[in-house]
């Protein structure tokens, strides 16, 4: 659209790094957004696979002087790791506890020490190692299930080790004595190697290098559902389920079923999805966390990724055998059936999302009828629309061979809708809230302007803030706020320096998840709000507030925002009605 040439700031989710989302315009960096989410998270990448964000699990992946890497009888300076004068353990390590299939690599170059070892351990004990002769570029002894490899880049080599870890707490790079050295072998060498980069990623292949510092504040360009990437902005959430991918762990129990660990490729692209097979006896066939979960008394959401293998799946929460709600998910056709309930528990709402290759993310959202602990069940159903009974499960005699595959269970409290997957091990894990903003852009906004937002209707929180501009003063002084509310309405509110509303408009009748294009024109005595190609209301009075900060996907009052942003644009002019209609037409 030619109007884009008139824009002063264009955010289209493409380039990013830690702490920053690059804007397409201006190109000098003055419009780049500051991004914060002081925790890790997951996203769906361009290949449609779930991955951690950032993908590199090491902190300070190319700053080995940082304390994140502990140096033991060795020093690091100027890209050079030098062995000390001792004869015991020499090298560096970083504490990291992610388990499962994973790959670690270091980019190194021989200077004067020939042999190094990559090891994963638990401090005093270890899981295995691989030795490398970095002078002759040869993989040496591999122990404990490690598989080593080398990629030669000419000026340096990448030494790679893959392993399926169950209890590692540290990753080591150690000076050793030969290609056949044993674990943490002693060496009297005071030689050195060049050390450039390090990466640890989930899966059995070395993924493209992603440089990190503290691994926090990495924006997520999310490809859920395919198509172009969207900037994903979510509220703080905690996954209360432990061992969310290890259904064979003692943290999970159940009835009349067997679990086969790591049976097929999961939605994260690695062979870590488990198979539940219902045994050939009469009764319920289910799996559930071994501890009851306190769902609190507010809205919550229970979800799991599942793939059909002869039976369909039910999800239910139950305070008792007679007070429950649940839903049957048709895994062959990707349909969430009508939710069912019993006793005092009101029916849940259900959602099913296609993750490709036969995988669906099934979820139920509910408001528990009472406070306290609840059962959370994943059950097998004999048909794609079975009637659920006690505890929200079905009783039937299984054939002993059918079931479904499982991956990534999640229970979120204080959550009326499902959010991105949060992997867990022995602990519940919290993902913190995302926020994107840019201060000091008064000159890009100007005294009259048009604010445009392209994303998705994502009501479900207290108030989803899609986009806002803010000037000086209190929370609601000199502000332009476009927000969604749980009633599937979208509002725009323009407030002056006394926090008094200058202009307000709204559009109702929207559908959760639908694409939305919103634009508000702010000119003195000339305001208009367009939603999806049509005018909501216009107003021929009022003064435009002075603003200088852009908030995207959140605002400074509530902290329960959820947005998927395709683009956000500021025009330093008031576009005409015809231009607004064209700009916002779907």
């Amino acid at each position: 659209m030619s109007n884009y040439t008139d824009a002063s700031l264009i955010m289209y989710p493409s380039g990013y790094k830690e702490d920053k989302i690059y804007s397409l315009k201006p190109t000098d960096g003055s419009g780049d957004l500051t991004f914060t989410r002081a925790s890790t998270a997951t996203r769906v990448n361009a290949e449609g696979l779930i991955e951690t964000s950032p993908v590199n699990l090491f902190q300070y992946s190319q700053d080995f002087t940082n304390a994140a890497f502990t140096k033991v009888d060795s020093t690091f300076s100027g890209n050079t790791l030098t062995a000390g004068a001792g004869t015991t353990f020499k090298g560096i390590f970083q504490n990291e506890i992610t388990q499962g299939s994973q790959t670690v690599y270091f980019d190194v170059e021989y200077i004067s020490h020939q042999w190094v070892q990559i090891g994963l351990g638990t401090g005093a004990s270890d899981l295995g190692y691989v030795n490398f002769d970095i002078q002759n570029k040869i993989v040496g002894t591999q122990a404990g299930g490690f598989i080593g490899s080398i990629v030669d880049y000419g000026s340096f080599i990448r030494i790679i080790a893959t392993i399926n870890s169950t209890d590692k707490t540290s990753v080591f790079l150690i000076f050793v004595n030969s290609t056949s050295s044993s674990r943490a072998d002693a060496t009297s060498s005071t030689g050195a190697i060049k050390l450039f980069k390090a990466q640890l990623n989930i899966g059995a292949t070395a993924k493209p290098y992603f440089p990190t510092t503290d691994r926090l504040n990495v924006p997520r360009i999310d490809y859920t559902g395919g198509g172009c990437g969207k900037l994903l902005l979510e509220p703080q959430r905690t996954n209360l389920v432990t061992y969310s991918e290890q259904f064979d762990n003692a943290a999970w129990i159940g009835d009349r079923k067997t679990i086969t660990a790591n049976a097929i490729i999961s939605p994260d692209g690695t062979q870590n999805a488990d198979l539940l097979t219902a045994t050939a006896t009469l009764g319920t066939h289910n799996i559930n966390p071994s501890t009851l979960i306190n769902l609190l008394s507010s809205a919550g959401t229970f979800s799991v990724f599942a793939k059909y293998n002869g039976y369909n799946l039910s999800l239910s929460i139950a305070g008792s055998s007679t007070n429950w709600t649940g839903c049957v998910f048709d895994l062959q056709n990707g349909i969430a059936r009508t939710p069912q309930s019993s006793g005092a528990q009101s029916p849940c709402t259900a959602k099913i999302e296609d993750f490709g290759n036969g995988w669906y993310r099934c979820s139920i959202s509910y408001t528990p009828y009472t406070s306290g602990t609840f059962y959370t069940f994943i059950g097998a159903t004999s048909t794609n629309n079975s009637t659920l009974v006690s505890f929200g499960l079905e009783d039937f005699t299984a054939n002993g061979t059918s079931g479904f595959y499982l991956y990534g269970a999640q229970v979120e409290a204080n959550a009326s809708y499902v959010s991105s997957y949060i992997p867990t091990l022995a602990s519940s894990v919290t993902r913190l809230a995302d926020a994107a903003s840019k201060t000091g852009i008064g000159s890009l906004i100007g005294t009259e302007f048009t604010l445009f937002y392209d994303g998705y209707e994502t009501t479900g929180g207290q108030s989803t803030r899609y986009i806002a501009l803010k000037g000086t003063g209190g929370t609601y002084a000199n502000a332009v706020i476009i927000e969604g509310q749980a009633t599937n309405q979208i509002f725009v509110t323009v407030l002056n320096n006394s926090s008094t509303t200058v202009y307000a408009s709204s559009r109702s009748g929207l559908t959760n998840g639908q694409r939305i294009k919103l634009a508000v024109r702010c000119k003195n005595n000339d305001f208009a709000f367009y939603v999806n190609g049509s005018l909501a209301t216009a107003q021929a009075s009022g003064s435009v507030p002075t603003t200088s900060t852009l908030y995207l996907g959140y605002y400074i009052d509530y902290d329960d925002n959820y947005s998927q942003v395709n683009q956000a644009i500021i025009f330093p002019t008031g576009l005409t009605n015809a231009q607004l209609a064209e700009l916002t037409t779907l």
Partner: protein
Amino acid sequence: MNKYFKYEFTDQAEWSKFQAKIQVKSTDLEGNEIYTYKDVAVVELGHICKAYEVNEEGFEVCTDLATTWAVDIVWFRTPLPSFKPFEVFPKPTTQLHIFGGYEAAYFKSYCEAYPDSELCVIPEVNDVV
């Protein structure tokens, strides 16, 4: 630099007093009072179960609930000194809760508090795999 600490307060009432020190109150456009955390992220774990027993249905049922009120906090500024007496350091491999991405940082804090823990010693030379 963000700091992650775990706390146990005597009870929920005591936590409420400290909670007020890290919250701000405002009024939204509809006139509702809202409280939001400022420069911190908080997860209240509440009364932690210290011991479980497996019931006849196979579920673990808590038999010893702590009287203390557990709270995890990430500080985006210097932690308030008044919170210091309530810091606790449960074992990193079995702790109840963690903020995503703080595993290594917490591990380091734990090892500073308990340097002799088996989790914190460096590998011994020539151990057999």
